[in-house]
C-alpha cells in the first residue's frame, strides 16, 4: 500500500535526522515550511472554512485542482503541513479516501510536537479527510 511506504519514508527520515543532532529535525521541518510557501494555497482560499483552528498561527488547507495545497505563517506548522500534503497528494484518490487518523500516528511526528501543535496536526488531517469526501472519483 502506497500509504505505508510514504509513512515509513517519513518515519525513517525523522529518525535519521534525530540521530544526527536533536535540532536537525526542527531545522528540516522549517525548511519544509519554506518549501510549502513556494507553491502555496491561493490567497482567496485562505478563509475561515479552510483554517486549521487549533493552530496558534494562520494555517490554511484546501483541495485545488486535484491536489491539496496549504499555506502557513508559522514555519514548524508549515513543515508538518508540507508532510501531510505530500503524503495525501502521493496517494491514488481511492486510497486517500480510506485513510484515518490512526494511520498517521505511525510517523512519530507526535514526539516532536508540543501539545498545541499536535492538536493542529491531527485537526489538519481530519479536515483533509473531510474534504476528500466531497471529491468525485
Amino acid at each position, binding site marked *: 500500500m502506497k500509504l505505508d511506504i510514504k509513512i515509513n519514508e517519513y518515519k525513517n527520515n525523522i529518525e535519521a*535526522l534525530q540521530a*544526527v*543532532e536533536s535540532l*536537525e529535525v526542527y*531545522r*528540516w521541518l522549517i*525548511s519544509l515550511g519554506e*518549501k510549502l510557501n513556494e507553491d502555496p494555497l491561493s490567497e482567496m482560499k485562505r478563509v475561515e472554512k479552510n483554517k486549521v483552528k487549533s493552530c496558534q498561527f494562520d494555517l490554511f488547507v484546501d483541495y485545488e485542482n486535484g491536489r491539496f495545497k496549504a499555506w502557513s505563517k508559522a514555519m514548524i506548522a508549515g513543515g508538518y503541513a508540507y508532510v501531510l500534503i505530500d503524503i495525501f497528494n502521493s496517494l491514488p484518490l481511492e486510497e486517500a479516501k480510506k485513510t484515518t487518523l490512526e494511520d498517521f500516528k505511525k510517523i512519530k511526528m507526535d514526539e516532536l510536537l508540543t501539545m498545541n501543535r499536535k492538536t493542529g496536526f491531527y485537526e489538519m488531517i481530519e479536515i483533509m479527510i473531510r474534504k476528500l469526501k466531497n471529491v468525485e472519483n
Partner: protein
Amino acid sequence: MLKIKNLKADIDNKSILNNFNLEIKPGEVHAIMGPNGSGKSTLSNILSGKKGYDVSGEILFENKNLFELETEERAHKGIFLAFQYPLEIPGVNTNIFLKTSLNAIRKARGEKELDAIEFLKLVKLKAKELKFDEEKLNRQLNVGFSGGEKKKNEILQMSILNPKLSILDETDSGLDIDALKIVADGVNSLRKKDNSFLIITHYQRLLDYIKPDYVHVLMDGKIIKSGGPELALELESKGYENFN
C-alpha cells in the same frame, strides 16, 4: 586547468619555492615527489590560500588569477585540499558541517541547496561507496578518529563536494596498507575527464594504487625533472640524494 608560472614563495625571509612551474590539464593526475623540506606543504598551502607567505609569480586556475581569490572562494570555484594532518574540531557535528560546506559551495555556484534529508541520502551513498562508517559522521569532526579514519574522512568530503582540482597533501602518511587501498580506491572512483588531481607525496607507495599521468620531482624549491609514472620507480630505486 591549473597553470603555475615562476612561482616564488618565501617565509620569514627564507626562500622555499623558487622558479616553480607546473601545468595541469583537466582529466590529468599529477604527482609531485620530494624530500622533506623541499616545499611540498608550502605548495599546497599556497594553492589553498593560506596566509603568511611572500609570494610572487602567477597562478591561473581556469584562466583566472588565483591570488585574487580568498580561501573560501577557491573552494567555491572547485579547489579541494585533503590535509596532511586533518584537524580535530570539537563541538562541530561532522554531518552538519559537511552539509553547511556543500550548500555554501552550491550556493556560490548558483545551484540549489540540499535539504537535510537529500543531504543525508547523498552522504549515505558516498559513505557506502568508500566503506566509511556512516555512524561516525554523527560525531564531532575528526574527534577520536584514528589517523586513517581522518584521511578517509577527507576523501569522503572530496567525494561529496565534487571538486575540479583535488590536492592530496601527503595523504598516505600514517596509513597502513588497508587504509591506503581504501583511500586510493576512493580517489580512483572520482577520476573523471573534467577534474584533476595533484598528489603530493614523499613515498612512491601510494602511486602503485593511484596511477599518475605525470610525475614531477621537487627539490630545492623547484621541479628538477618531469616524466611519466616510471619516474617514480626510478626515484625510489635511486633515492632523493642520488637523484641529482
